[in-house]
C-alpha cells in the first residue's frame, strides 16, 4: 500500500486478502481473450463480450477488498453502479486487459509453497525458515494488490508470499465496446429463480447431443409453473423440463409479493410471468449459453430473466465466503423468430419439433 500511495495520486489501488476469491469470480467470465475493466467508487467491473450477442459481467465489489482507494479525477459525484446498471460514468477509467493473463497471474498463489502440507521439519526449505510471525502463519499468504496509476498506465497486480514478490503489469488497451446489451428490467416477460446447479445439470445433459440452439419455454400449465429447456442440433434434440409440484406463480405486476415458502423440494424457487396466460418461448445459441457453465457450476442460485424483447439475463449468486455473496451476470440476444411459429428458425432450417408436442398438453 505504502509504496503505491507515495507516488503522486494513483487513480486506483486496492488490496485483496484473497486472490483466490477474485480468481473464482473472474474465472466465471473467462471465455474471452480481452476483458473490459471499469473502475468506479463501488468496485471493479469486468465485462467480456462475444460477437455482440453475448455479454458476461463480473462485478468485484469494494467489500471484497480490505482496502480500496479510488481517486476520482472528475468533479461531479459518481453515480452508484449496481450489477445491472447500464450507466457508465464518462470520467471513470475504462480499459481492456488480457483476461487469460490476469487469471493465470492470480493463480500463481500457493504455487510457491508446496510444502505447507508437511510439518516444518520435513520441509526442504533451506532459504526461509518460518517463524511465528511469518506470513504463512498470519494467513497473509494470499494478499494481492491491484493498482492503476494513471490513464494509459498498465494495471499492476502484486502478489507477495514469504520471500517472493511477483509483480505483473498488464498492458491496458483502448476499450473496444462501449454499450451493454440492452436489457429492460422494467419490462420483464419472465423471472425464474432456481438453484444454479440444476441449470448446470440441465445444460451439461443437453450438451451431449452437441446442439446448435437452446430453446427456453416457460408457461403456466394446469395452474402449475412449467419451465423447459430444449436443445436441437444435427444429432437430434433433447428436452429438460422443470416441473414444480405446486403453484408459486405471481403476476409480475403485483410488486412486493410475499414470497412463498422456498422449501428445498421446490425446483423453481420463484416463477413469475408478466402475463400468466401467455407462453414465453425464445431460442439462443447453445454455445453461448454453455460459456456460462463455469458460473452455473460454482453459483448457489441463478435468476433467469427474459425481457419483452427476448433478451435473456442470467444472474448468478456466488458465495465467495460464508455469508458474503457476489454476482456474475450474463446477457444473451435471442435468435430472431416470428410470432406464432416457434418451431421455424430464421437462419437455419432445422425444425424444432420439440416444442410442438408440449403444446397439446395445454
Amino acid at each position, binding site marked *: 500500500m505504502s509504496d503505491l500511495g507515495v507516488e503522486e495520486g494513483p487513480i486506483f489501488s486496492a488490496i485483496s486478502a484473497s486472490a483466490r476469491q477474485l480468481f473464482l469470480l473472474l474465472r466465471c467470465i473467462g471465455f474471452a*481473450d480481452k476483458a473490459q475493466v471499469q473502475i468506479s467508487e463501488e468496485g471493479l467491473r469486468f465485462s467480456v463480450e462475444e460477437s455482440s450477442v453475448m455479454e458476461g459481467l463480473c462485478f468485484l465489489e469494494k467489500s471484497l477488498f480490505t482496502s480500496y482507494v479510488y481517486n476520482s479525477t472528475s468533479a461531479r459525484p459518481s453515480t452508484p453502479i449496481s450489477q445491472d446498471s447500464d450507466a457508465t460514468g464518462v470520467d471513470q477509467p475504462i480499459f481492456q*486487459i*488480457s483476461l487469460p*493473463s490476469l487469471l493465470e497471474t492470480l493463480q500463481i498463489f500457493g*504455487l510457491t509453497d508446496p510444502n505447507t502440507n508437511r510439518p516444518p521439519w520435513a520441509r526442504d*526449505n533451506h532459504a526461509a525458515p518460518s517463524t511465528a510471525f511469518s506470513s504463512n502463519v498470519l494467513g497473509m499468504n494470499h494478499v494481492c494488490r491491484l493498482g492503476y496509476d494513471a490513464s494509459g498506465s498498465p494495471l499492476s497486480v502484486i502478489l507477495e508470499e514469504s520471500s*517472493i*514478490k511477483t*509483480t505483473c503489469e*498488464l498492458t491496458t488497451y483502448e476499450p473496444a465496446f462501449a454499450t451493454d446489451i440492452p436489457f429492460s428490467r422494467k419490462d420483464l416477460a419472465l423471472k425464474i429463480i432456481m438453484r444454479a446447479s440444476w441449470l448446470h445439470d440441465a445444460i451439461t445433459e443437453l450438451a451431449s447431443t452437441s446442439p446448435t440452439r437452446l430453446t427456453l419455454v416457460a408457461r403456466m400449465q394446469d395452474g402449475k409453473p412449467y419451465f423447459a429447456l430444449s436443445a436441437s442440433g444435427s444429432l437430434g434434440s433433447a428436452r429438460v423440463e422443470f416441473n414444480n409440484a405446486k403453484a408459486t406463480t405471481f403476476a409480475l405486476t403485483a410488486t412486493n409479493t410475499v414470497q412463498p415458502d422456498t422449501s428445498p423440494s421446490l425446483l423453481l424457487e420463484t416463477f413469475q410471468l408478466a402475463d400468466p396466460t401467455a407462453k414465453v418461448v425464445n431460442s439462443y445459441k447453445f454455445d453461448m449459453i454453455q460459456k456460462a457453465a463455469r458460473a452455473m457450476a460454482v453459483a448457489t442460485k441463478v435468476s433467469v430473466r427474459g425481457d419483452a424483447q427476448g433478451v435473456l439475463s442470467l444472474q448468478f449468486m456466488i458465495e465467495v465466503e460464508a455469508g458474503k455473496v457476489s454476482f456474475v451476470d450474463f446477457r444473451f440476444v435471442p435468435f430472431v423468430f416470428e410470432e406464432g411459429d416457434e418451431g421455424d428458425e430464421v437462419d437455419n432450417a432445422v425444425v424444432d419439433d420439440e416444442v410442438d408436442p408440449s403444446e397439446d398438453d395445454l
Partner: protein
Amino acid sequence: MRFKASIQNISIFTKLTASLNSLGNFAWVKLSDNQVCFTIIPEQGTQVWAVLSIDSIFEVYNIQSAANNVVNLEVPLASLTSALRSALQATSASIRLTKKDNIPLLALTIITTSSINPRGAISTTGSSQEEGAFGNGYEESAFGRERETIVTQEIPVKVLSADSVSGLHEPRCREPDVHIMLPPLAQIKGISDRFTKLASVGAKAGAGLTAANAPRSRLELSANMHGCLKLSIRTDAMNISSVWTGLTNPELDPSQVQGGEEGIAEHPSTRMKALGSADGRSDEGWATVRIDGRDWGKVMSVGRLGGRVIACFCHEHALILYVYLPNDNEGEDESVLTYYMSSYSA
C-alpha cells in the same frame, strides 16, 4: 573390460537418470576407479556434466579395463530409467557390464523378497479337526515363508573408445559476475512453468497463433550479489516478474580461485557487490541471462534430487548451475551435477 557394482541408493539413481533423460536421450557414462561421470550433450539446449562419487549410488564397485580402469559407455537413458524404476521396490540390485550375441549390455539384476504369511488367510488356531490334517504345515508356515524373485533387465549400450571421447571437454566460461544459492527448485519451477504458460496465452491472444507455433518463450533470469533472484517474462499483453530476496551469495574460497586472495579482490563478483541492493528494487547490479522457458523447466526437474543449487551468472553470456547431491557423510567428496546454459541475445 569389467564392471560390476551393487546399487546402494536405487531411488537417487532413478531420479538422477530421469532428470538427465529430460534433457537428452543418450548419456556418455565414464566409469573410473574413483568416480562416475554422466555427460549429456544435446544438439541444442543445456549440457550436463555430472560427477558422482562412487558411494553416492554404488556400494560394492569393481572396475577393470586395459585403459587405466576407465570404461566409456553410451547409455540410452530412457531404458536405464525404466529398468531402474522397476527396481524401486527391490531389496537389492546390482549392475554389470556383459555381452550377449556380441552386443554389449548393462545387466541390471533386481532381487525382490516378499514374505508370504499364510496365517492371514487361514487361522492357525482354527478348529481342532483341521489341525490334525494340516498341523505340520502350519507349524512351518507360522514363521512365514520368504519368496525371492530375481529379475534381470538388459540395457544395450555402446562401448566408446578413449579416442572418441578425448575431444569432449567441459565448456569453459569466464568468471561469473554473480553467484547465488537458489531457493528450492520446485518453487522456481512452479513459477517459471506458469510464466511459460502465460507467454503462450499472451502470444495466442496477440497474434492468433496456436500454442504449437507460438514463438518460444524467453525467460529472463537475473540475480545480484545481495541475495536477490529475479525471474521475468515479457509479452505483448503483460510484463511479469517474481523477485526472491534474502537468498545466500556463497563466499568464494581463495584456494579455488585463480590468484588466491588477490584473485577474489579482482573477481567480477566483488565488483558486482558494490552495486545493487538487498531489497531487489535497484536497477543496478543485476547479472541477466535469457533462456528458453521449456528448457529451463526441464533443468528444474533436477529439483527432485533435493540438493543445494548454486547458480553462476555470466551477464548476457551464460548460466551455470551446480547441483550438489545430498550427502550423508560429511566431509567426503561431494557429487555435483553441472548444467551449462548459454544466454540468448535480447
